[in-house]
């Protein structure tokens, strides 16, 4: 179900990303539309996580800008940035759960910070969120007591705690069994269609790219930028670039 909405809410313009003297991305531009499921693809080490970190304002770009909902986050002051961040949920590649807090405490942290809800209501929301990711009952477990896939799902529950307008996922399917991955697909689709959350994924998971991806861009190390854009089907069927074909057909370069 392709979204007909083409109002851009995340605009990346001429973004150049560097670590020290090493340029990872050079002059990258693209837009994400409201309510769509947008995917960033590419081989390992081509700078997908780097791009994501720039899009959420964790790293300031060397050049270019990132606009989220009309706010240029590369130039915004702390207060504006704080406000924008309260509407963003992020699932990091490493789950980034706080090891010294139980799952319930992890999920309730943003709720306690950004809302004035009473503790009982927060507890109830936490229970609902954990139920959403199939972790009902694990409220008082510590992250170190869970499996990798469970931690990933708990990270997602925390990212969704505030029902954010924008959700960023870095490799959400990595480490999940096929059944859980398919369940995650359903969850993501319902959140996206039900609430209208704008979603940006970094992924290499072909199955999910085809089941969820609406528009994708593909990065490549050699050009330090985008080598293809379009729907997953378009790229698979019509692209003449061998690097794109290899990716979609799971072949060695």
């Amino acid at each position, binding site marked *: 179900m392709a979204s007909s909405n083409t109002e851009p809410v995340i605009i990346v313009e001429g973004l150049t990303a560097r670590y020290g003297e090493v340029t990872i991305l050079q002059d990258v531009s693209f837009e994400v539309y409201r309510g769509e499921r947008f995917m960033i693809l590419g081989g390992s080490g081509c700078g997908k996580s780097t791009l994501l970190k720039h899009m959420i304002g964790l790293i300031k770009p060397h050049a270019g800008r990132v606009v989220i909902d009309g706010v240029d986050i590369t130039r915004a002051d702390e207060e504006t940035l704080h406000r924008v961040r309260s509407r963003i949920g992020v699932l990091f590649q490493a789950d980034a759960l706080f090891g*010294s807090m139980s799952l319930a405490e992890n999920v309730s942290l943003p709720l306690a910070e950004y809302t004035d*809800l*009473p503790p009982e209501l927060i507890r109830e*929301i936490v229970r609902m969120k954990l139920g959403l990711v199939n972790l009902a009952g694990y409220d008082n477990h510590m992250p170190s007591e869970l499996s990798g896939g469970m931690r990933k799902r708990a990270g997602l529950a925390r990212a969704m705690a505030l*029902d954010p307008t924008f959700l960023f996922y870095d490799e959400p399917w990595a480490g999940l069994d096929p059944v859980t991955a398919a369940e995650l697909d359903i969850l993501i689709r319902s959140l996206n269609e039900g*609430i209208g959350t704008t979603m940006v994924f970094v992924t290499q998971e072909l199955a999910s790219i085809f089941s969820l991806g609406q528009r994708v861009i593909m990065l490549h190390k050699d050009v330090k930028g985008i080598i293809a854009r379009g729907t997953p089907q378009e790229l698979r069927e019509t692209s003449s670039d061998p690097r794109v074909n290899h990716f979609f057909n799971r072949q060695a370069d």
Partner: protein
Amino acid sequence: MPEMNHRGYRLHVEGAPGAQAAVRLEGRLALEDLKALMADLQAVPVKMKPREIAVDVAGVEYLDSAGAMALIEMENLSRSLGIPFELLGVSEKDHGLLCLIDREALQRPPLRPESERPAIVVRLGEVARRQYRDVLEIMTFVGELVAALAYCLVHPRSIRWEEVKFYMKRAGADGLPIVALISLLLGLIMAFMSSLQLKQFGANLYVANLVTIAMVRELGPIMTAILVAGRSGSAFAAEIGTMVVNDEVNALVTMGFDPIRFLAVPKVLAAMVVVPILTVYADFFAILGGLIVGITGLDLTAFTYIQQTKSSIRVFDFATSLVKAVVFAMLISGIGCQRGFQVRGGAEGVGMSTTSAVVSAIFLIIVADSAFAIMLHYVRH
């Protein structure tokens, strides 16, 4: 009775107690108004007590998971009060969202109850058991460490000398400035304080004896050991602890390395070499401090002070101080590594192990020093 408010949603309730209640919702049912929304919705079954409830959500423009939860909670509450409940005008996308929410999960208690403070007796028992386990673990570790050291002694080629050099620099050379500074100040203070007393008896010269004997026999090794425990014992624990948390130690094991031989032995060897050297430096700088006070405050010449110092040092004292330093080094580095290997959990565990490494090291240093004091007393006589 229609009802308006300044929230993102509008609520119209029609009906009377005992009759059917028709609730109409419009606008945004979202997290920011959740508190008011829950209160409004739950008031219908609780306060009005109608015969049945029908909620029309056709006018809802935005529904997030918190809003969906409020609707489900209202349904659960009505049902539990025996009031039939119906949701009307649910759009397809909202239906998807409502289906996602696991109704059971909202009510199910956690698999594990929230931890509460146990009774004092239980806690005492826990502490005792933990201490017992701790002692056992330390014993096991000491055994493994000694075995690993013995193995390395027989197979010196298996020692990672590059690592040993690295930690010698870290624990030794890099620690020299602070050891030197503190010993110098210690020497100055000891000489100054004792000179105030000794001057009264015209025994200025004996300041040199006092500083030298106190420093060489007791304070030199202890001060150095405590500084090394704070600088390096903690670093060892944090380094190994972080490796445990990141599965790096497991990786070593699967690659066929003995983590103790690989990680602990270089650190222990390095400490055993540098702590005695640091101790000699500490003695030297303390004596220098005493010399400064002697020359500037007590009208002694450098020559007499040094002569007096020389005559008060006994080779035996000097040798035992080095032996002590080696033993302290083993205790500090050993407990540092052991606390590191003991880490469980995450960042918090690393922090606790670091603290524990320093505290345990200082404790062991003091205990060992007392043992030395008693032993040496009998050896000397």
